[in-house]
């Protein structure tokens, strides 16, 4: 009777055990580590097209409009606030008031139907986040939102994963800045960030909680 297996089967069997283990490990790393942090899942750095070509780079970067001109409730409320069409019309009833690209804005103004802006920083519904608690304790706009003054259509600068939230909640001194600098979009962290950060933590009484119910209420 001929042999059932070729002599090479021994090597194949041994290699397949090792290769199988390696393949399983690789798949686990991809599925558990790489994929959930990839921008494919988090949509990080993906500029979202808006119904109106509103460019932050132009309004913030070139014109130098303050964040709070539009996002009026950022220091008083949980939500920063999406401006009503009226805010746009403050200027655009006077300038570029015939521009075809702004027709959706004028239509909204005429009909009273709000513009349906696309939400870029969309936290899960089971997370409670309060803007005012952050900006009033020395967390700058650009710390989380990046250099909005350089974005045309805005993208999500950070991953918004829970580990990203906790990074700051566990070590706020690495990210805090003086309250006077919170709305400065061009702010650069000084060389003595840690030293200053520890001082600001004390001064502003920053003790961010990391218990579940702080954010998952």
């Amino acid at each position: 009777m001929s042999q059932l297996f070729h002599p090479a089967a021994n090597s194949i069997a041994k290699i397949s055990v090792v290769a199988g283990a390696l393949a399983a490990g690789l798949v686990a790393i991809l599925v558990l580590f790489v994929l959930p942090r990839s921008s494919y899942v988090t949509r990080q750095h993906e500029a979202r097209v808006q119904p109106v070509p509103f460019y932050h780079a132009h309004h913030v970067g070139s014109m130098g409009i303050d964040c709070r001109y539009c996002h009026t409730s950022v220091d008083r409320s949980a939500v920063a606030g999406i401006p009503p069409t009226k805010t746009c019309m403050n200027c655009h009833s006077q300038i570029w008031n015939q521009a075809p690209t702004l027709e959706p804005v004028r239509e909204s103004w005429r009909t009273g139907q709000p513009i349906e802006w696309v939400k870029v920083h969309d936290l899960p519904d089971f997370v409670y986040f309060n803007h005012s608690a952050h900006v009033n304790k020395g967390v700058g706009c650009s710390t989380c939102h990046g250099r909005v003054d350089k974005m045309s259509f805005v993208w999500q600068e950070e991953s918004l994963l829970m580990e990203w939230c906790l990074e700051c909640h566990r070590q706020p001194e690495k990210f805090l800045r003086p309250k006077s600098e919170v709305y400065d979009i061009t702010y650069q962290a000084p060389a003595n960030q840690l030293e200053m950060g520890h001082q600001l933590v004390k001064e502003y009484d920053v003790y961010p909680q990391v218990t579940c119910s702080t954010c998952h209420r």
Partner: protein
Amino acid sequence: MASAPHTEPRIIGPGHTFATVTDKIASLVLQKKTPLGWFVGFAVAFGLLQLLLVSVALLLARGVGIWGLNIPVGWAFAIINFVWWIGIGHAGTLISAILLLLRQQWRTSINRFAEAMTLFAVACAGLFPIIHMGRPWVGAYWLLPYPNTMGIWPNFRSPLIWDVFAVSTYATVSALFWFVGLIPDLATLRDRATNKFVKILYGMGAMGWRGSARHWNNYEMAYLILAGLSTPLVVSVHTVVSFDFAVANLPGWHATIFPPYFVAGAIYAGFAMVLTLAIPLRKFYGLEDFITDKHLENMGKVLLATSLIVVYGYTMEAFMAWYSGSTFERFMIWNRMFGSYGWTYWVLLFCNLLTPQLMWFKRFRTRAGWLFAVAMVVNVGMWLERFVIVVTSLHRDFLPSSWGMYSPTFWDWATFLGTIGLFLTLFFLFIRFLPAISIFEMRTIVPEARLEEERT
């Protein structure tokens, strides 16, 4: 020792030789024609498995709201079924590991399918912690400690995470033990199969086994080491499962008797399930020569001994509730006996206290029909035990304003029956495609294997 075989009751039918043992067991697998009864049984099991598929699919689509659990009974069928299945698995490990180390030869004909039963029961048990979340994919980071995207770890002080390690270790060691034990038999099947494709399949499983002295030496070492590793698992797994309850500060759960009482209950439930499977198996395949009345009698004795330990546990629970002087403990046991679910407690006592007492009598221990009936009652009793522990402890909270009742929904039952379908489906496939009794170990107990002067 030379005279021992004369007095020992036989653990193998008369007249068997190496060849007859091998022929008989291998033919169950290699026969061309699958018996009609197998198809009927498999169809029923497979139908129940489809019920599981539907139940789990609906669970994923709609969430745990399709089950009947709600505060205050936040743990119900999922944990009851989990503990029931994981307990059933224990007999397999006990038979394969502890009885091997104690040189109990009668284990030889039942260890293979008891180990298979262990694996399948652990598979059914493992399903529940995963599906009870409703969104099983979150289980990866709730159960396994790895640097997840949330930047947090599971609570290492919680017995639930110990459970993950206990059960996964148990599943791994059981699977290894079972597979290593199969290797020489897979080689036998490879050599006896006539179909080339079947030969190759069994040949891959046999991993090049040729039966040389060196192979046997390595094999025996590996098998002993695995038996040594499995032995503590018999005790540790259900101990950790009992911690799921005992560590919680809840009357009815918070008791130091839980670990030993759970372990005994697991072995008790496991032997009942071995009997439940062994009796029909030997009947339909005519294996009375291998799974003899002596085997059944021994298992009946184990059933009796473990039932007494379990009953001691029940007694101590009631005694400690009274002796503690705690209002809540006393109310808990009173409520368990005479409360809304009181009937479950009395049925439980009928199943686990009264019924096994039949095992004191040899006439019941040696009659397959009686043993099967007792084993079925015990299966029900051990499921009820977990129901009583989980539901009666939870449904009367500390404050009467939080009291509630629990009743399982159709989908609770469907999921439970579905896992029985999964278990039976796997078991039917196992007895069709793998030797349900260890061929080579059976060869060691035929008279031919003894020295000339030892033969009976």
